[in-house]
């Protein structure tokens, strides 16, 4: 019985250690990821925001990928309503 339990306990220790490693910085990573996603959002919406974009045809295809986060994005950027006529989310 103890043989069966030992790996389980080892796994629990490993899980605890992982939590110990990851948890304090989870917020920092989430924030870094969000900053990167925001930058990506600006690239995709460049044309609509008035910045000439040589690869607009390609970024247009990415629009659906960022659409879900658009509402959160413009609110985070301090705009209550969608800044774009073409995109209305609220």
């Amino acid at each position: 019985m103890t043989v069966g339990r030992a790996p389980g306990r080892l796994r629990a220790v490993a899980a605890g250690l992982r939590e110990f490693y990851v948890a304090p910085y989870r917020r920092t990573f989430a924030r870094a990821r969000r900053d990167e996603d925001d930058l990506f959002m600006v690239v995709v919406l460049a044309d609509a925001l008035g910045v000439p974009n040589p690869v607009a045809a390609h970024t247009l295809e990415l629009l659906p990928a960022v659409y879900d986060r658009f509402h959160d994005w413009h609110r985070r950027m301090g705009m209550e309503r969608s800044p774009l006529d073409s995109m209305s989310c609220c």
Partner: protein
Amino acid sequence: MNSLVLAVIGIAMVLTGYALYSKHLATRVYKLSPTAPTPAHEMADGVDYVPTNKYVLWGHHFTSVAGAAPIVGPAIAVIWGWLPAFLWVTIGTVFFAGMHDLGALWASVRNRGQSIGTLSGRYIGARGRNLFLVVVFLLLLMVNAAFAVVISGLLVSTPTSVIPVWGAIVVALLVGQAIYRGRLNLPAVSVIGVLALYGLILVGDRVPVVLPDSVLGLSPAAFWVLVLFLYAGVASLLPVWMLLQPRDYINGLQLFIGLGILYAAVAIASPSIVAPAVNTAVPEGTPSIVPLLFVTIACGAISGFHGMVSSGTSSKQLDRETDARFVGYFGAVGEGMLALGAIIAATAGYRTLADWEAVYSAFGQGGVAAFVEGGSTIVNTGLGIPPSLSATILATMAVLFAATTMDTGVRLQRFVVQEVADLVGRRVGKGVATLVVLVVGMGLAFGAGADGSGGMLIWPLFGTTNQLLAGLTLSIVAVILMRKRRPVLPVLVPLVFVLVMSVFAAVVQVGTFYSTGNWLLLGLDLVIIVAALWVVVEAGVAMSRARTGPVETDEDDRRVPAADTTER
């Protein structure tokens, strides 16, 4: 007095405190409920709000709050004899620190995981929040300068620790790469990382690095302070996964190993304490024990910084409200035990009283170097590790604690600088903000003493500010309890004591700085006195309002708006 007896009495006191007093607090005062939904569940987002096993959470909480401060403070304060320091650490842990840490955790959990900064806005008023920012800014300002000086002092007094201290950075960098790029198994990497660190300690012990009397025209201590600030600046700008995260992790493991080594050695060697119980012949220039003892030992007896950790991260991960007793109170118990270990090392590690008095020749002398020297003698007798190697182990341990705090301190203060710049309508980049932090920190370290010794003069001032922050947190807890018409004395008595002692200590230090003509610290001290009086006034007003205001129920807590997650 045998140090083993002292250790046993001390541990028995804090454990009894945990068994009885924390239970009283949990059931009668804070009324923790096993069924109350915690923010970790109500607002679970997989980032900040994550229900966590209470032992793992305690591990985080303890390693975040414990560091070099509970070693440095007690090691300085034993100059008044071991008994006052012992009593303040044990009684402080039971009735002050444990109550404070648990209270901050509870207050935050009942307010959807909001931080003390936000809570001071809600319970003390709009000015409360600004006051909090001022106190935190002062605290960060001093911690960087003080710890840089502590580290440089150790690097000079224990040259064998130079290689492991700087090598630990390489170990952390490699651990970071192994985890994120190699995706290696964490337990294996942890073992290898710790072994590599101890390998470096062995190497360092063979190859001491002693700097010449003048490096670039600076004394060795001043040179190390300069290098440390440059390092901290670079470290705070690197992506956290590269250095800070693995470094924190290895240091966390190291904390448990170090505590284990220290207590095992004390248990086996059980050396006699040579220092007097109460030192009646303190060196000339030593300030009066009241109030300075109570600010010299802040961490280990009560520390406002714990409230920031309790309310900033731990409260958002608490699985059940009743876990708060273990995480908050027992976290303080762990730190009290570290402080107790420091007291024993600095008083029992010498052969004769004369040896001890030679080390504690003036106030601020001894300190963490005495901890390393005394501790190494104990580790040598107890575990048979050669004295020089023992000293290297303890010095490396103390430096690594101080260094992680400094890394984080510089990083946090960068954010504060950016925020202040934002307030006046300027945008400041990472690099410029870091530069400002480094210049201010070094200015403080050098400005207060040409050889970079300013940090140790700052130490009592740092403790005063830390206590002030604790006072602010306790005022918030007291206001909440008053609004709920709960027993408030367990909070009120420590609150009054801590505030009186900090104001008293700040006033005493005005005299000290004035007589030595230290205008920089005098100015800083005056700012702290203003902040302290401000805390007293605001707390008094908020409490008198709370006493007469309407009774607040648990239902009202539920309607608190969500925590502000925009702060870093």
